[in-house]
């Protein structure tokens, strides 16, 4: 479970996220929507302690993130909005293996997870490609695979579908659905609900840094008024 409590974050005195509270249950899929600049990225970066809120706190499975960063990062997998920000190795295989290696797993298990994650994003067999040479959508897929391979309890994806083609998108959605079934909580950031609706248990809309809407099935007109593409 992820609990956000009074989260406020300021860039040079301007609050990009302003007193946000919300909860994501295990096995729940929350879609975090909102127009450009509404603070979505700034909020989710607090979920594994990459940003520390100026006020408020985030708890993962009941423990404040700040108290146990390793625990938070082990259980929260994160895909950055710009996939290039997340790469740490030169080739696809080495990059996806990076997280599992840090978990201290056996080599066999690492290889298994890398193969499985690449399969889920339809990039099987591309282990030796250089990440710098990938197309835009391929980069995005590898970034998703990197988080999947860590087998996290909670998965946060910041606009993961923008560059994905039809089949990759469906394949990733299938995997997210399966993860949710198995109790993983999934947070997907987006400003376009069209593809995600089938997955979403709840939609939270940010507007100017605050929660403007938190509902299981908001109406199209409500969403449009907040600058979010309805399903």
């Amino acid at each position: 479970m992820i609990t956000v409590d009074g989260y406020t974050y300021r860039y040079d005195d301007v609050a990009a996220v302003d007193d946000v509270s919300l909860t994501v249950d295990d096995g729940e899929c929350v879609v975090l929507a909102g127009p450009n600049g509404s603070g979505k990225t700034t909020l989710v970066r607090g979920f594994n302690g990459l940003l520390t809120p100026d006020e408020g706190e985030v708890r993962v499975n009941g423990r404040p993130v700040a108290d146990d960063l390793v625990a938070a990062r082990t259980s929260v997998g994160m895909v950055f909005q710009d996939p290039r920000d997340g790469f740490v190795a030169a080739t696809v295989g080495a990059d996806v293996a990076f997280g599992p290696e840090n978990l201290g797993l056996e080599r066999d298990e690492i290889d298994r997870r890398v193969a499985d994650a690449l399969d889920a994003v339809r990039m099987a067999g591309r282990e030796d490609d250089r990440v710098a040479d990938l197309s835009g959508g391929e980069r995005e897929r590898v970034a998703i695979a990197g988080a999947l391979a860590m087998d996290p309890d909670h998965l946060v994806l910041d606009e993961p579908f923008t560059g994905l083609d039809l089949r990759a998108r469906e394949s990733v959605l299938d995997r997210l659905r399966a993860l949710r079934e198995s109790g993983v909580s999934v947070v997907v950031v987006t400003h376009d609900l069209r593809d995600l609706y089938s997955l979403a248990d709840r939609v939270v809309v940010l507007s100017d840094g605050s929660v403007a809407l938190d509902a299981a099935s908001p109406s199209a007109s409500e969403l449009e008024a907040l600058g979010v593409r309805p399903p």
Partner: protein
Amino acid sequence: MRFDATGDTVVNRLDPRAKLFVQAAVAVAAFAHTSPRGLLVLTAFALGVCWVAATPVVDSLRSYRAFLPFLVAAPLVEGATLGAPWFVPADAVGPGLASYRVVVLLLVSTAYIRTTPVRESRAAIQSLLPGRVGVVLGAGVGFVLRFLPLLRDDLSTIRAAMHARLGTARSLRERIRLVGVTGLRRVFGRADRFALALQARCFAWNPTLPPLAPTWRDVPAVAVGVALLAWAVW
């Protein structure tokens, strides 16, 4: 430290080229007159400049505190001897004055920085240096300004990327290596992509330059610079 000038003093409104000239003239004069009397005159001048330019003297010097050991060490080292009397004040005078000269020059350059937006300095470079050299160096400085915050962020994004996937489990040596190698890879990748951006945006040898309009206000400034130079050669 801040990136760009703010404020609206007389000095802010001077042409950057006039300001660069005065700055250089002060430096030449300071090297020519590194005597108690010369430095006294220049101190008065520098304080005057800071006052007109609304540059807080103590704050500015504080931002250079990394230099302090330097300025104190040189006279001490030179004045010290390996035996009685252990310290010869006369030997320390020259280095002491030289250290003080550094302080004066730092003040003047701080006043320049605080009153001159980078964009104007860049225009000054481009208009002072002829032709293609001016384009490469003038535009180049503007580009450095673009990449500076990016590369700084890169160091922290690389760290964030590693942390998000528990890179902290690795040894310190391995982490340093990873940050270094990943950082270099990003720098080179950025350079390649930046070249493409310049091409797509028609980077040309003959662009419209940012506007620089010298006014009558610059005349006294230039006169002061000329006077300082004359005093220096005298």
